[in-house]
Each structure stands twice: as C-alpha cells, then as structure tokens.
C-alpha cells in the first residue's frame, strides 16, 4: 500500500520485540524519526542498541509490531507480496557479510541486481562496468569470490546495492572490511547518490572515519533514540 508523503522515511511510535509472551525481549521503544529524500544519515550506538533491527524494519525484512513505518510512500505495516518485492527493489541493501554466490563473477553478481530493473537493461552492462571500475575492480570483473580479497568482495556487494540507483540505501557496517582509500571511495559514491540523485542513505556504523560524510548523526541507545543531530547545521 502506498501513501502520500514527501518524507523518504517516516517512523512514528515504532516498537519491536523478539520472541513472544514472557520470553519476549523488546529491542525498540517508541522510535520517532523522519528522513528527507537525499539525506545521508548515519546511525550509531552501542552493540545491542537496536540499530540493525531498525535497519531491517526499514528494509521490510521484518514486519513492524507497533507504531507506524512509512518508507518511500509505502506503509510497511501492511505491505504484502508482490508489492513487498517491488518495494525491496527500490532499495540498495549493503550487509555486513557480502553473501556473494561463489558461482558468480563480480560482474554477474552485480548483474543480479541489474536484472531486477529491465527498464535500464540497455545501459546496465556499461553501468556495472563503470561502477566496479570506480570501486577499483575494473580488472577483476570476471573474478569469482574465492579469487577476491575480503575488501574486494565487500566492494562487489556495494556495487550490487548501488547499480540500480536505488531510492534508499540501507547499509550495515559497509566499510568495516575496507581500507582508508576504499572507504573514501565508497563514501564518495554514497554522498554522490544522496546529493546528486536524491537517494536517501541510512548507514549503521561504528566507524568514526565516516561521520564527516553524513548530514545527520542518529544515536540509538537501549532501543531508544538518544540523539538526532544535523551535522550540516
């Protein structure tokens, strides 16, 4: 279901618990948050504060249990298949683990994301090549994961998340496996997507090297929004 809103992400009174009944453990409490299109937000907080859970809720990988969650005009409380898949295709998800199929080359892995967007089929191959080259993998397009280093695999996964120019990028520690130079390249790409194409970026990270790239810094502690600072102000 879609709803008319000009916010990219709009969260109100969001609760979330793992388990049921007496074994239930609440990890998110009354989250209130809104992100504009084109905003680059970084979410930090100690381990177990609920950052990744919030990210997975925004990515429609989990279903909200209480409160309101509207993303890119979709009410995620009621979203069902096939609209659910359509919504996920608008996102670019970067996971901590690259999860690349061992059978696929770097090019083919990124192509898997491109195949979901037949409207851009004509230019997708060029875009994949350009993006992988930009990420320093131009010479390794035909390499399979076992032929790549950890950082290279992570960059392939990043290319896979960005190649279709998503409306929203959700990234979970995307730079953890990267050296300083590649971290800079990835952050540059994300900032370019946000500021030039209006992509909203929500990144979970503990890596303080990346804070300066963001427009907002959101801090979550014990499942509650502790602070929400606009860095550009």
């Amino acid at each position, binding site marked *: 279901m879609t709803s008319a809103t000009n916010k990219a992400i709009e969260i109100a009174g969001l609760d979330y618990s793992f388990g049921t009944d007496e074994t239930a453990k609440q990890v998110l409490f009354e989250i209130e948050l809104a992100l504009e299109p084109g905003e680059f937000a970084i979410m930090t907080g100690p381990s177990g504060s609920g950052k990744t859970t919030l990210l997975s809720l925004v990515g429609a990988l989990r279903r909200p249990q209480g409160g309101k969650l509207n993303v890119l005009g979709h009410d995620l409380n009621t979203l069902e*298949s096939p609209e659910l898949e359509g919504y*996920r*295709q608008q996102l670019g998800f970067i996971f901590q*683990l690259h999860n690349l*199929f061992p059978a*696929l080359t770097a090019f083919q892995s990124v192509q*898997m994301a491109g195949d979901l967007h037949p409207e851009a089929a004509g230019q997708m191959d060029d875009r994949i090549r350009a993006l992988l080259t930009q990420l320093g993998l131009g010479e390794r397009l035909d390499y399979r994961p076992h032929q790549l280093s950890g950082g290279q695999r992570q960059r392939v996964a990043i290319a896979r998340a960005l190649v279709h120019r998503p409306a929203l990028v959700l990234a979970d520690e995307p730079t953890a496996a990267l050296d300083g130079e590649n971290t800079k390249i990835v952050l540059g790409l994300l900032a370019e997507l946000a500021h030039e194409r209006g992509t909203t970026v929500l990144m979970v990270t503990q890596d303080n090297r990346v804070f300066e790239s963001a427009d907002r810094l959101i801090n979550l502690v014990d499942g509650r929004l502790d602070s929400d600072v606009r860095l550009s102000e």
Partner: protein
Amino acid sequence: MLKLVSAVVFSFRLLVHERGRLIASVGGVTFALLLMLLQIGFRNALLDSAIQLLRQLDADVLVINKEKDPFLAMNRMHNERLYQALSVEGVESASPLWVALEQWKNLEEQTLHPIRVIGFNPNKPTFLIDEVNENVDKLNRIGTAFLDSHSRDSYGELPDDVAQVNLREIKIVGSFPLGTDFEVDGSLIVSDETFFELTRQSPDWIEIALLRLKPGADMDLVLENLALILPGDVRAFSKAQLIDRDLDYWRTGTPISVILLVGVVLGFAVGVVICYQILYTEVLDHLSEFATLKAMGYGNDYIQIVVMVESVLLSALGFVPSILLGSLMLAALGWSSGLPASVGLGDALNVGLLAVSMCTLAGTLALRKVRTLEPAELF
C-alpha cells in the same frame, strides 16, 4: 520471459561451477535412472521373449488348446481340430506345429540343457523367418535341424555341426535368429518327420494349428464360426489377439513382471532421495545468498524457478549417460543371455519423463526451506 531466461542462466551457473560436485550429482542421478532403465529393459526382455516365437509364425489365426495360457505353456490338442478349422468358410489353409521341450547335450561339458524343438511341415508356409524359408529344403533329410543363432553358449561348440538331443545325433544344417526366453536357452526347428523321430511324439497330437485366411475374408466372422464349429477344448485367436493376451498375462498375471515394476518404483524413490540430497545441500550451502536475493527484491517464485531449473538440468545431464550406459548393459545382457533385452525410443522417453518427475519432486521438497527463508535471518 526475461526473468525466466535469467533464472535458467543463473541455475546453470550454480550447477556447473563446482565440477566435483557436479560430477557426483550427475553420477547419482545417472545411477537412479540406470536402475529404472535396467528394470524396464528386463521387463521388455520378459515380454518380448514370451511372444517372439508367436510373432514369427506365418498365420492369421491360431487354434490352440484352451488351457494353453500362456502361449509358451505346453498343451497339445488332437490334429482333428486342424481339419475342423479348415472346413470353416474363409480359411484357406491350416498347418500344424509341433513343439516339445527336450534335452540338449553339451558335448564339451557333458551337461544337459533344455531346448525347445519346433516341428513343422516343410511343404507348408509356417514361419516368417527368412533364414528358415530360404533354406527349408535342407530340412527334408531326416535328422537335420536349424539351430537358433541367439541360443546361449551353454549348448557348447559343435564339432562337425553334429549335436545330440535326447541322446540322438542331429545334424545342424542352418541357423535362424530367434532368442532365448525364461524357460529355455534356445530353439531348434526341424521337419515334422525329424520331430517325431526325435521326440517319439504321436503326429496326431499337435501344439498349434496355424490358419491362413482367404484374401478378403472377414476375420471376426471366421473367428465367430470357428468358435461355433470347434469343440470346447480349443480356442481360436487372431495373431494380434493372442499377442495381446500373452502380453497381458505376463504384465499382470505374473509376479516377475510386478517385481520388475516395483524395481522401477524403487529406482524412482532412490532417485528422489539422491536428487533431494543434492538440491537440499545446494540450497543449504547458499542459504544466506538466497536470503540476500530475497532482500534485494527477488520473490520466492524466482528462487523456486532457479531450483526447479537446476533439478530439470540435473535430470537432463543424468539422462544422457544413463541411456548410453543402460543400452550398453542391456546389449551385453542380450549378447550373453540371448534374451531380447533392450529399450526402445518410447522407453527412453518414459525414463526421461521419470527423470524430470524425479528431480522436480526432489526440487519441490528441497524448496520448502527456501519458501520459509526470511532475509531477516541475515542479521
């Protein structure tokens, strides 16, 4: 369509990227298909061997003892029935056939082996076997015979083409291709006079009356009139009817046919288990990757197509070697046993269908894990 093409290409890449696993997987599927193919080949051997003599008889209608069921069972009738049948309107000629199971002596090993001795009147058309019809004159001398060239080796070598049947010497003057069956290791064709000398049977008791109809005669009407004229101890069948009756007998009335069918079912079950293990392991090994696909926006339908295409590809890859191996093994069996063990195009297509069904059923079972897979498990 684009999605389907993408899924097929993706499945192919998943399947072939690990050569060792691919070879083991195809080997497993081939093994299961081979099991089924051999059972089908054995069953064909059973059915074909049961009717191969019947097929080679030059007759439109056959009159036999009503207890002669199946056709190869020995049940004689009085030759008076032959003349009664000949009196029916539409019957052009009637030829008697005598059959006996006798003992062939392997002269090298001095062992006895059963052999079917078939006696006929060389002056009457009886067989559809060119080798017999073209050389029939050679049988006019008493004590001569044609030996089935597909007989088993158990009959031994023949020095000077002289054999011993029922302790009587017989000269082999030619051969004909027929084949063994589950009762005997081979057959001899002899003239009626040699038959009586060899078997000490009375000429008055015949095994089969072979009737040929006049051109344009109504088969149904002739059969109807034969049923009216002939006494109740015999029955008349068209050749096609008798072949159908015998095939039906062997297909449904015998435990061996059922056992061979059960063998096919067991092969199928083994194949499902093997395929399931292959596909389930494939899914399990890539669970987080499949979950990532779901998080990217791929639906269950796409992943189902991928796994199902993998299963069909597996069945296709296992099908080809199983047909080649199975045909070779059945040919070797036919060569060593004389049984007509083979698989035809129809059987190969059936095995192909079984292969696809086996792998897709296994794929469906393996998919249960993917269907319930939540991408949230990635965290």
